[in-house]
Each structure stands twice: as structure tokens, then as C-alpha cells.
């Protein structure tokens, strides 16, 4: 066991009735780490959080906090506090009573409770609101009360169940930073459930991407963004342009065969694990460079070049987004200036920004099984976020 591990989840399975939601899941979290569980709805991230909190009973596996098995302990004996998606504030109590309730349950004297509540209100910017009821607060203030209520009992682990999803988009950006700054300052271990990729990227030290009850990939935001381990992760992290390519792999490079819309090119392997055959190529709209059809070809061996035709252009702000048809496929590519509708264009994707995966027809992945059926649907769902 890694000495830095503080919260260990080992072989955890859980479900509702006959439906298995989590399948023998393992996850180690260090003390003071901020981990985001990222996934689309139904991937099991909330069930995992609720099992850790003690609200969902796992059918197998264990949850260990600082070497102590807490799997069978009630929620309040695990040293954890949870912030709920709906905030779950008690509408009949004031802000001060909400924050101080955990301390009251611990039987602390009234003066001590008042002092601690005062500290928390100051820390969270709620000073002067202590005697208000939750109904008289804004969304952001309610969210902070919920956070204060959880922090009041000095938990070792803070569990956050989509705490920002009920906030206005503008407030959300600020609260993201507030929460992660607070977490760093208090040195508290935090597990954050979200379906918002950007939120996870900005807040977390480590992102755990979940798919169908399993961990699809975990790593720092930079790792999962730049080196997705599977087509699912690539799509979830925004690489939604998909092409079918084929080629040969040797020790250090992958040679992409010439196709109807692309020339042959030689790309450095760059740590990819690939086998010769058919590839699924994925890249982000902003990763590609758009050029007119007659522009001079770039140096081969550094990038994949495709030729296509512009079908539409729109301006979402900052850049122009083009819908481009390449053979049967349709992709989105960003460019600093608009290209005319119907014009022939070339698309250049640098090797390091092109994600390549063996497709199933060329190579059966060792872990490929029924869980991957219906991937298309989930990828589409992921792209909505």
C-alpha cells in the first residue's frame, strides 16, 4: 500500500436491486488531494460518492480511511461530510443554526458553537446573514451555507455531489475557485462529483473519468486532456472529430496509409500503444489548422493533412467554427478567419494533438466486452456537456 494513500477504495461493487452500478472499483486518494469523479449521467460516479459517504451499501469491497475500515460504519462515524447537489439546507433553521447543527449534535457548549459558526461565516463571506433563513439567500449564498455546515465538524474528507450544478453560469466560475482555494487552505481531502469537464479540469488535482461503473482513466487534468487512453475518454474530453484511418506501426513511428482524402504520412509514435491495422482518429476542433486547398503542403512526418469542403461556418466567439465534410465524415474545425461556404480546404492536425486508437475490427481490445456496447450513445451524451 502506497504510504501516501489516505482514502482507499478497494474492489467496490454496488448497485440497486439487480442492477450493478459499480464493478469491483479500485481508487486510492492521497491526503489533501482534490479528486474529481467525472462522467456522464448513469456512469456510477454519484453511487461511488454515496457508497464512500455511507448512504449506499456496497455489495462487495471495502472503504478504508487512514488504515481504518469504515465500510460498515454509519455515515457520521467516517470522518466525512457531504455537500449535496440540492444543498439540502433545513429551511426551518437560520443560517447559523444550519451551520452549527453538527456541533450541537456533538454536544458542544453554546458559546463554543457560536464562536465556530462566526468563524465559518466570516471565512465563507456570510457575515451578517447568520439569522436569515435559507429562503432569503441567493443561490451562491445557500451553496456556501451548505459548505459551512459540512466544514463545521472539521471532517477529514469533504464529499461534494455536483455542488455547482444549481448555480448560474457566472457565479459558478467564481465558486469553483473559491472552493478549491478553500480546500487547499484547509488541507482537506476532497472528492468532487461532476459531469462538467471544465469544472473538473479547473478544480481537481486528479481527474477520475468513469464509464459504466468502471474507471476509464485517471490522471492529472493535463494527462487526461492530452493523452486520453480510450476513444471514450478522448470524446469525453472534447475530441469529438472522428475519422477512420489505417496504417502500419513500427518501433518508433506510425505510418498512416494514403486514403481518399489524406496523403501518406509518418507520425512519431510518442508513447501510443498501437498495432497495425484500422485506427480511430480523434482530435479537437481547436487542435487542427485550417488552410485553403491550394496552400503549400507542410513538412510530412509532423502532421496529418486532410482535404475537405466547407459546409458551414459560425461564430461562437473568438474564433470561427467550420463544419467540414471529408468524404463521408463531417468534422468541426476552428480557424481565426472565416472560410467561404463550399470552398476546398486542407486540415492539418499536428501529431501530438491527434489521438489514435485501434478500432475493434482491426484489433480486439483485451478488455472489450459488453460494457462497450452502446458507446455511441454515451459519447453523444458526453458531448452534450
Amino acid at each position, binding site marked *: 500500500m502506497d504510504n501516501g494513500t489516505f482514502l482507499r477504495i478497494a474492489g467496490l461493487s454496488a448497485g440497486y436491486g439487480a442492477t450493478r452500478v459499480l464493478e469491483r472499483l479500485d481508487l486510492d486518494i492521497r491526503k489533501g488531494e482534490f479528486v474529481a469523479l467525472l462522467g456522464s449521467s448513469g456512469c456510477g460516479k454519484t453511487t461511488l460518492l454515496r457508497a464512500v*459517504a*455511507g*448512504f449506499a451499501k456496497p455489495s462487495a469491497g471495502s472503504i478504508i480511511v487512514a488504515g481504518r475500515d469504515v465500510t460498515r460504519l*454509519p*455515515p*457520521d*462515524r467516517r470522518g*466525512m*461530510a*457531504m455537500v*449535496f*447537489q*440540492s*444543498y*439540502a*439546507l*433545513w*429551511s*426551518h433553521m437560520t443560517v447559523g443554526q444550519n451551520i452549527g*447543527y*453538527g456541533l450541537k*449534535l*456533538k454536544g458542544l457548549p453554546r458559546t463554543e458553537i457560536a464562536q465556530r459558526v462566526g468563524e465559518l461565516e466570516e471565512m465563507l463571506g456570510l457575515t451578517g446573514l447568520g439569522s436569515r433563513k435559507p429562503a432569503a439567500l441567493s443561490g451562491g449564498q445557500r451553496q456556501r451555507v451548505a459548505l459551512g*455546515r*459540512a466544514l463545521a*465538524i472539521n471532517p477529514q474528507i469533504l464529499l461534494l455531489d455536483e455542488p455547482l450544478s444549481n448555480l448560474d453560469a457566472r457565479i459558478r466560475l467564481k465558486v469553483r475557485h473559491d472552493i478549491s482555494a478553500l480546500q487547499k487552505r484547509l488541507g482537506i481531502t476532497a472528492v468532487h462529483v461532476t459531469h462538467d469537464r471544465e469544472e473538473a479540469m479547473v478544480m481537481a488535482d486528479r481527474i477520475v473519468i468513469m464509464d459504466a461503473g468502471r474507471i476509464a482513466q485517471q490522471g492529472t487534468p493535463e494527462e487526461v486532456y492530452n493523452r486520453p487512453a480510450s476513444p471514450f475518454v478522448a470524446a469525453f474530453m472534447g475530441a469529438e472529430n472522428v475519422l477512420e484511418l489505417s496504417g502500419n506501426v513500427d518501433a518508433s513511428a506510425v505510418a498512416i496509409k494514403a486514403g481518399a482524402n489524406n496523403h501518406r504520412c509518418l507520425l512519431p509514435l510518442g508513447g501510443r500503444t498501437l498495432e497495425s491495422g484500422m485506427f480511430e482518429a480523434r482530435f479537437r476542433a481547436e487542435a487542427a489548422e485550417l488552410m485553403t486547398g491550394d496552400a503549400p503542403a507542410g513538412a510530412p512526418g509532423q502532421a496529418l493533412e486532410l482535404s475537405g469542403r466547407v459546409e458551414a461556418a459560425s461564430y461562437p466567439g473568438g474564433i470561427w467554427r467550420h463544419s467540414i465534410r471529408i468524404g463521408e465524415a463531417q468534422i468541426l474545425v476552428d480557424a481565426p478567419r472565416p472560410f467561404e461556404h463550399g470552398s476546398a480546404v486542407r486540415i492539418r492536425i499536428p501529431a501530438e494533438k491527434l489521438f489514435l486508437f485501434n478500432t475493434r475490427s482491426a484489433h480486439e481490445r483485451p478488455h472489450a466486452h459488453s460494457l462497450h456496447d452502446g458507446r455511441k450513445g454515451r459519447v453523444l451524451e458526453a458531448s452534450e456537456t
Partner: protein
Amino acid sequence: MPKRLIGLVLVLPALAVILLLFIVPLAASVVGAFEEKNSYGLGNFTKAFELYRSDVMFTVMIVSLSTVLIGLFSIAIGGYLTLGENPRAVAILRWLYRWPMFIPFIVVGQVLRTFLAKNGLMNNMLVGAGIITPLQAASFLDWRGIVIAFVWKQTPFVTLLVAGAMASVDRGTIEAARNLGASRLRILLEILVPQVTTTLMVGLVLSFVTMMSVLSVPLMINAQSPTMITADIAFRINAYGDYGVANALGLISLAVTACVAWFYLRHSMKERA
């Protein structure tokens, strides 16, 4: 015909029913309560209080006590239905608790009469089990019998409302309290009940009014003095044809229920403020 007139014509039958079957008889009773031989005055009320003061007190005490007990039982049952952790016990309780609602008051009176009498089923069982001796057997067919009948009959109704309200409370508010270490009893009293107070009050006020107007139970269980106002009203009319005092007694019981309604309205206004 203009549109507005059509609307009025359509409302007319309903309005007529309310007017003829409710407003007019009510007004007649109110007027009747103040009618004496040749003039109007408070004579009926003086007589009602002289004869039945203890019955009015008896009624208010019994109905109040029953209301309190109904409140306690419905909170306990609703709380267990919401917080209970044994799914089978919860399912059984959910299935069982509603039955008394479908049994008429007169049947409740009859059932409890045979059950609570001095030589009734309850005492027979207690004697048979050796818990009491036959000499210790006492009849419960007095105020206790009425309270038992009312609580037995009305608890399911209030529980139905309260349990429904508790079920619609955000589960997160319960889990948040559990997360901080609140026991189930504390969650019930400090988290759940405060969130369903309004529903509980509505249920209790409606129950109070229902119990004030029940005639069959006091007649079946407790046909002696003191008895409830409803029995007195029936007696005044059936035995003496004395509509004056009967109307006065009716108005008194209306005043009592009005007090309860006012109490409820004041409470709900405060909640909203």
C-alpha cells in the same frame, strides 16, 4: 345572450344548491338560537349553559386530548414510514395503518363497545392471560372509550397527510442530518416534523372539526352524563322538540371549532411571514 350572462347561468345551479342547502339552514339555525317564545334574546344560551356547561367542557377536553394523541401517533407512524430501515416492517405498517379510515364511526362505536365493556373482549383476554383478576375488570365505556374510538378512527387520516408530506421532503435534508450524526429520533423531531408542520396542522384541524360533530360514538360508548354536545343536541330535539337550545348548543360548538381554525390561520400566517 352576452357571454357574461351565460357564465352566470352556468354557475347558478351550484350557487342555488349552496344557498338552499347550506346558507339558508345555517342562517335559520343561527336565528333560531336567539329565538325565544315571542322575542329574541340570549335565553337559549343561558339555558344551554345552565344545563350543559359540564358537557361543553367534557367535549372540549375529549376532543382536545384526542387531537393531541392523534398528532403524536401520526408523527410516530409517519416518521417510521419515512425513516424506518426495515423494509418489510415499513411495508406492513404502510398496508395496515389505513384500514380504520374505511370504517364508519357507528361501526367503530359498536366494535369498541363490545371490546371495552366490563365483560368485553379486552377484559376477557386480560383475565384469561392472568394479568388481572375478574374483580379488577373495569369498563372503559366512559370518556376513555370515546378518546380511544376517536384516536383509532382519525389517526390514519392525519397519518396519510403527514406521511405524504414527509415522503416529499428532500431526502438530502435527512441525509445531511445523518451525515452530521443525528439519531433517527432527532431527525424526526428536529428535521422532519418542522418541515411538515403546516400539513400536520391542517390534518389536526380537520380531525378536530370531524370529532366535534360525531354523534354515534358518544351515544354508543358513553350514554351517561357528562356526554358530548352532539348527544345533547339530539336529545333536546328528539325528547323535547326544543330547537332553540339545540341551535344554541350548535352555535357553541361552531364557536369552539372557529377558535381552532383561527389558531391554525394565525399559525400559517406567521409561517408565511
